[in-house]
């Protein structure tokens, strides 16, 4: 089945106001273009699940799309704080934010339970942490096999999970390499799954390297060709992280008005991600080019 569609159609068809949406990608392969499309379409009252909060959280918050965030780290890589998020949490400015905190391990376990259709997942690290007091969803149960009590976290099943990857075929077999984060677990946990990719390739390319597939097509509802869809984050082998953008963001986001002007000009003021990319210009993208470093092919040869 051909699951190719445009980003605007994928977002319009699968995401509704008030839903729980996961955007995963660990400082790499982050579905930023999809977040921008959520902003363009003016979705409201979403709860965002994301292990490593970054600039896209500031952007979704300032655009008024989110009522809550579920995550385990919020920061702008090595460039500093997320100032819009801090204004919400520290001063309820302009409105409070429902921030549900875990550790990275806790988020991983929530997705593992969600993907495995289990009600919860055990984790051994929370004893003595104030996160347990802050977050009533972290509980403990008695080990039924006679051991000690153990903490558990509830399954996380996003209404929609969105991930970004290097390539896919038309059916939505997703291949990724480099830092892999929790994308596969989040995709399997999602009720609907949208994947944006740098390239749509022929089936034969995918089938030449089946171990590279992180999410099989039966999990995916929509696959979207979206070059540079992770900017300002990196995509291994395609483009480098944009540290300049991250630094400028930490400066700009200190001022709520400048942040909203940025959204108006760059997101609301562009028809789609391709226009956002084109506006930055070819010289800009030249600076983020990476050097090729190919792996040695592996031999998948079978019976003679």
């Amino acid at each position, binding site marked *: 089945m051909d699951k190719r569609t445009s980003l605007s159609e994928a977002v319009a068809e699968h995401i509704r106001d008030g839903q729980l949406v996961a955007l995963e990608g660990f400082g790499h392969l982050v579905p930023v273009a999809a977040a921008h499309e959520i902003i363009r379409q003016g979705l409201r009252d979403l709860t965002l699940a994301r292990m490593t909060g970054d600039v896209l959280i500031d952007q979704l918050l300032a655009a008024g799309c989110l009522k809550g965030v579920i995550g385990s780290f919020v920061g702008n890589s090595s460039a500093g704080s997320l100032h819009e998020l801090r204004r919400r949490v520290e001063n309820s400015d302009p409105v409070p934010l429902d921030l549900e905190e875990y550790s990275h391990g806790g988020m991983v376990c929530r997705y593992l339970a969600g993907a495995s259709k289990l009600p919860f997942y055990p984790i051994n690290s929370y004893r*003595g942490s*104030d996160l347990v007091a802050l977050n009533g969803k972290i509980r403990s149960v008695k080990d039924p096999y006679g051991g000690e009590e153990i903490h558990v976290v509830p399954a996380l099943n996003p209404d929609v999970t969105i991930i970004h990857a290097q390539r896919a075929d038309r059916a939505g077999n997703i291949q990724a390499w480099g*830092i*892999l*984060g929790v994308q596969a677990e989040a995709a399997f946990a999602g009720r609907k799954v949208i994947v944006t990719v740098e390239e749509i390739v022929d089936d034969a390319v995918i089938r030449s390297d089946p171990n590279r597939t992180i999410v099989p097509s039966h999990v995916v509802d929509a696959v979207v060709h979206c070059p540079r869809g992770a900017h300002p984050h990196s995509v291994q082998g395609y483009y480098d992280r944009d540290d300049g953008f991250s630094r400028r963001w930490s400066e700009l986001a200190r001022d709520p008005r400048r942040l909203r002007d940025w959204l108006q000009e760059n997101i609301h003021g562009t028809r789609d991600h391709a226009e956002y990319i084109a506006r930055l210009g070819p010289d800009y993208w030249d600076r983020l080019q990476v050097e090729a470093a190919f792996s040695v092919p592996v031999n998948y040869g079978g019976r003679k």
Partner: protein
Amino acid sequence: MTSSELLTTLSARALEGKHVVFAGHGLPTLAVSLAQRTVSPGVEIIYESGVTGAQPADLPRSISDSVLVTGAAGVLPMAQLFNFVLQGQRVDVGFLGAAQVDRYGSLNSSLIGKDWRAPANKLPGSGGAIEAMAGAGEIFVVMRRHNPRSLVADLDFCTTPGPRRAAAARGGMMPAGLGVTTVITDLGIMTRRGIDEELVLTAVHPGVEVDDVRAATGWDLEVSKNLVTTVPPTGRELALLRDVLDPERVYLR
């Protein structure tokens, strides 16, 4: 020599003889790179992004920098990193930063202020620190500023409990390792061993008085009878840091 050059050098030296090290955000990233080129060439570094055995050609700008991947020995998905490597107790030393440390080595990286629902400062949060503390054999902490707001008698919020705090709590499993055994700050080095032991000042940097350190610590800091003065970076260590590892001063602020 800057304070961050001294901190990084001492952090790197602390890794001598260690085999598997988990590197968190910030100065630990630079310190493990220096250790690889000096005291611990065989050390296997596991970054919080899942990269193992990295040999980056350029300084990683964060633990999730793609430069770590090119030429690395492996990349693990998060479920393997957190459940198999950290929870599976495969790590000798977890190297972390924190906003606050208490006398028994529990850490705060979540928020500043006693009102959790409206904190004075929202910090990034745990990341993988809780799992590093629970699963690693021991934890090293590096802190850029030693003052009564960061070395505190009572944490505003305990993100990452050491074994003593965990033992006093109920429900859930005890950390596997010793917790924080070494804290390296801009004034000196504090160490502890047993679960009920406090951090003790075991070294001061050249020119730093013990009374300065005690005044900068939020509790009545014990001082070791065998207090030593730290040895500043050698010419080779400084040259590696300045010219090879961090010429653009990403970490060496």
